[in-house]
């Protein structure tokens, strides 16, 4: 039942905040903050309970399971269940969602002044939908939550964004919706293939797992689903929506966009594409990995080319998520573990980078690097924190990203793709380029424009404290995170390996 509570708390928090905003806006902020923190505590409590010995429930590799009737059409034999389930992977993802949720509410404390109620309604709706995506195990429910994520995000960008927000919001919506529909077609094809084989319509993840599929059909279905997820995890050719959406979204929006929405793509690949179509993904793996490496290098170079701070950080996400994709398709233990750790680390480090740029924009009303410069003198504390996270996103050892990237690269190397590993390492090298350019242009150099701005108030600095702690903790002692993910990864490995082939050790 706790799973349903996770979602209900968020949605009800949003509605309450909207209503409360009628009278005073601060109340709305407090309500949504309370809702998200409550959720965060719930997820932590779950983690404490299950991280120790992850014991499985009888019906598959889930820690917690909730199943209820939803749409049942007895005549046609279709019964769609409200089936929520949580395993190591979704547990961590939900925790990340709540953490970034708290951050987004805090950062928008001062930034969003008009229409606060509606803003928090949308914010909570997105978080609720994302938690829904991470927990849904019934394919129809998954698709329902997947589409539901788009609408509030669209509003967030379109109403509270910056100059070219309409263009960015529409572009974001169409990109994701187009591939979402493709995913719908492949889900349905899978369901009907299952119907042919077993005579029953079901969207249940467990039943669909081993539907006998012909090679060609399986590949097409896999491709449809892969595209649906690849657009969300901006894979190389499908990424142009990301920089626009990020630059135009308000800080909280881009924080959630970078921190969470990109992860749903990766989560989808891990949870659905790999296990459901084992042979097809094995054949497709080399192509996907090349695209991933292309994404890493291209993202890094493009980040280097940008002059707008937010676009720069957006392109870094393209590069980092390239690593995650590489890790997922290298299909061995280290790579998968590395993909997960870099997912969480990226969420934290890029999220904070966005918050920093947001704070900077709030103070200097510009994002153009050429107009900034020499800020270290006036705002030492903000620049120091920016330096820390820039180092993080550069993959400096001792911080979360490095652990993830190192494991991914090791996994790729072990999977025999020597060329790809070299190219990816060059990608890492390029990441130094943009990280240092970010620091140099914004904070170092002469203070040509005589910026006299007020540094981070202690309260604001407090927001970054947990993020710094998490990133350091991930870098120095990622063991608890790895242990929680271990059983879930075993399950995914075991599903996604064709019966004949032993999992690469």
């Amino acid at each position, binding site marked *: 039942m706790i799973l349903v509570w996770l979602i209900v708390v968020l949605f009800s928090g949003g509605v309450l905040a909207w209503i409360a905003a009628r009278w005073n806006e601060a109340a709305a902020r407090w309500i949504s903050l309370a809702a998200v923190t409550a959720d965060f505590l719930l997820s932590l409590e779950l983690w404490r309970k299950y991280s120790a010995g992850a014991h499985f429930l009888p019906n598959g590799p889930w820690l917690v399971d909730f199943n209820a009737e939803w749409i049942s059409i007895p005549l046609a034999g279709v019964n769609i269940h409200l089936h929520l389930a949580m395993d190591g992977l979704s547990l961590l993802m939900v925790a990340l969602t709540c953490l970034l949720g708290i951050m987004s509410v805090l950062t928008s404390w001062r930034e969003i002044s008009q229409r606060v109620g509606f803003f928090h309604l949308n914010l909570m709706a997105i978080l609720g939908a994302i938690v829904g995506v991470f927990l849904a195990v019934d394919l129809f429910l998954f698709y329902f939550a997947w589409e539901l994520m788009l609408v509030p995000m669209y509003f967030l960008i379109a109403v509270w964004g910056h100059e070219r927000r309409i263009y960015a919001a529409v572009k974001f919506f169409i990109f994701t919706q187009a591939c979402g529909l493709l995913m719908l077609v492949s889900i349905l094809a899978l369901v009907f293939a299952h119907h042919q084989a077993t005579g029953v319509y079901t969207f249940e993840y467990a039943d669909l797992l081993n539907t006998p599929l012909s090679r060609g059909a399986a590949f097409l279905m896999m491709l449809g689903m892969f595209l649906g997820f690849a657009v969300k995890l901006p894979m190389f050719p499908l990424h142009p929506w990301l920089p626009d959406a990020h630059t135009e979204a308000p800080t909280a929006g881009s924080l959630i966009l970078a921190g969470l929405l990109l992860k749903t793509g990766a989560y989808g690949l891990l949870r659905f594409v790999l296990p459901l179509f084992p042979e097809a993904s094995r054949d497709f793996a080399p192509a996907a990995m090349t695209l991933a490496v292309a994404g890493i290098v291209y993202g890094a170079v493009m980040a*280097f080319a940008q002059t707008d701070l937010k676009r720069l950080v957006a392109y870094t996400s393209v590069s980092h998520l390239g690593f995650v994709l590489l890790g997922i398709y290298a299909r061995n*233990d*280290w790579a998968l573990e590395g993909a997960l750790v870099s997912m969480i680390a990226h969420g934290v480090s890029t999220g904070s980078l966005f918050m920093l740029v947001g704070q900077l924009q709030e103070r200097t009303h510009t994002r153009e690097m050429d107009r900034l410069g020499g800020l270290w003198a006036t705002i030492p504390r903000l620049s120091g924190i920016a330096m820390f996270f820039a180092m993080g996103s550069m993959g400096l050892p001792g911080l979360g990203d490095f652990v993830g990237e190192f494991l991914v*690269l090791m996994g790729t190397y072990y999977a025999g793709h020597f060329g790809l590993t070299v190219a990816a390492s060059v990608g890492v090298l390029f990441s130094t*380029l943009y990280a240092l350019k970010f620091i140099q242009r914004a904070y170092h*150099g002469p203070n040509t424009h005589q910026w006299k701005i007020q540094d981070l108030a202690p309260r604001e600095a407090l927001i970054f404290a947990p993020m710094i702690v998490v990133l350091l903790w991930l870098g120095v002692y990622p063991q608890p995170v*790895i*242990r929680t993910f271990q059983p879930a990864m075993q399950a995914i490995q075991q599903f996604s390996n064709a019966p004949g082939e032993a999992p690469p050790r």
Partner: protein
Amino acid sequence: MLKLLWLIPALPCAGFLTLAFFGPRLSRRAVALIGPGVVLASAVVSWSVAMSFFLAPPPGGAFVQELWTWMDVAGFHPKMALYLDPLSLVMMLVVTSVGFLIHWYSTEFMAEDEGYSRFFAYMNLFVASMLVLLLGDNLLLLYLGWEGVGLCSYLLIGFWYTDPANGRAARKAFYVTRVGDTAMSLGLFLLFTQLGTLQIQDLMREAHDQWGTGSKLATAAGLLLLGGACGKSAQLPLQVWLPDAMAGPTPTSALIHAATMVTAGVYLIARTHVIFEVSPTAQFAVAAVGAATLLIAGFSAMTQWDIKKSLAFSTISQIGYMFLALGVGAWSAAIFHFMTHAFFKALLFLGAGIVIEACHHEHSMFKMGGLRKELPVTFWTFAIAGCSLAGLPLVTAGFYSKGLIIWNAYASAGGSMVLWLAAVFGALLTSIYTFRMIFLTFFGEPKAHVVKRPGAAMKIPVMILAFFAAVAGFVETPGFLGHAHVFSNFMQKALPEAVERRGLGMSELGSEAVVMLAFLAGLAIAYFFFLKKPALQESVTEPPVGQAVHRFWFSDWGMDWLYDKLFVQPLWWFARINKRDFIDSFYAAVAAVTRALWVVLRSTQTGRLRWYAAVIVAGTILFVALALVAKP
């Protein structure tokens, strides 16, 4: 006492944290106390650990202190553990002691700089990550220290961030070292996937057992590690960043770019010596890189006008010597030279710092002169260090360490006559540019008047270093001069003994004699050129050939220009033209096509009734035809 091993890196780390968070609020006095104090404490602990290590050497000659498991992923479980053996002990002692002296020196040197606490924070972080690098038990932990050190060198080079040139130099340093690090990380992947562990000790055992000598895998791993080492220690292909790194404050150059960081590469190769023993080609590559760098840097050092740049090139060439020693298999000789080099090179930089400070931030040697009388202490310490660098026979430490390397370049297993000749010629070059520097700055008529006398905090460390520069040599003397092998015996447990090769053409005494000759010749040339008849210089550099050669050597053999053209320009060009992300235009084209379709279709909506009727009729005719034509 060994239990306190973890305290050594922890102390400077704690110093960094306190200074980073509370630095701005502390007074200058407090910062001056915390910064060097922490490093002093760490030095004291390391000396006491060294004592207990001498008196009661732990079993197997090494001590491992395990803190916690860093990661544990299906068979890959690197631990956060510290490993102490003679090699890391010596390195640790040098780093902490020289580090403390430099900290003490910079309390006064940076006195009037406003980023005071920030400076000491970075310096403490540097010492901490260097110690993590040295004491790291597995290669991943070593890599962590490795990158940490790179970060601190970036931070410190770009310390005076207001001037964009410093920023550019800092970034250049970080990029080039990062290239080396990437090569090294690839090496780590190769090692792990082939041998299944990154734990240094069992890695060595596995390498020894699984790979026969000359195996291609070992060579590949060796070359990759060499790449990493070249990046960090500014050896041949990647040495362009060190001259520019002089943009940082002088204490940082002294600490990072002379004594400690640049020798990290040497430590890495020494630590993973088994891999190089297994693949002779890799070892020869190390020797070749060492010899080549040694010569190139030597020539470039001669043409520099900036005192710090000249010292930077001399550092590159001295590390070239160490690589040469490693290449020929004289492991302990390399470490010995590292120790002596750390002392006198740090001293040279600190002295240069005093001179620059004295001549109102004047870097060019030609504008200084005759400082002998105004700065007596600096002059004498600088002279001692200079002689030690050049290798004044019998008295200075440099002579012994360099002599040993030159002898091994010929005598040891990997050695050969060519290497020996290169080493000797290098020694000649070294003494030329060292004495050139001494004569230009301290002798001749005074061109610049002295503005600031160095205070006590600057003079005492310099004197202590001068003492070590002179005395440190007696630990390891060649056969005919007392045959003291204290140092190499101590290193015995960690590094294999340099084995003599048979059929030697010449004895150790002979090679030492030739080195002494080279030293004297260099002194004479320098004296003759730079003190006796300065006019002679123009005669050499006037003719076009001389000018071209001079410019060529000055710009580090054109490497800078080459890299700039090869990598930097194309990247900037691509960044400029592709700011708009050409993939985006593909989707914009799709949008344009749909818009065009819309315009076409809109024109069909003319609004005239008869046109609508006509379309309906046409549609009907079309469908009737279609229905009839289609097969049943």
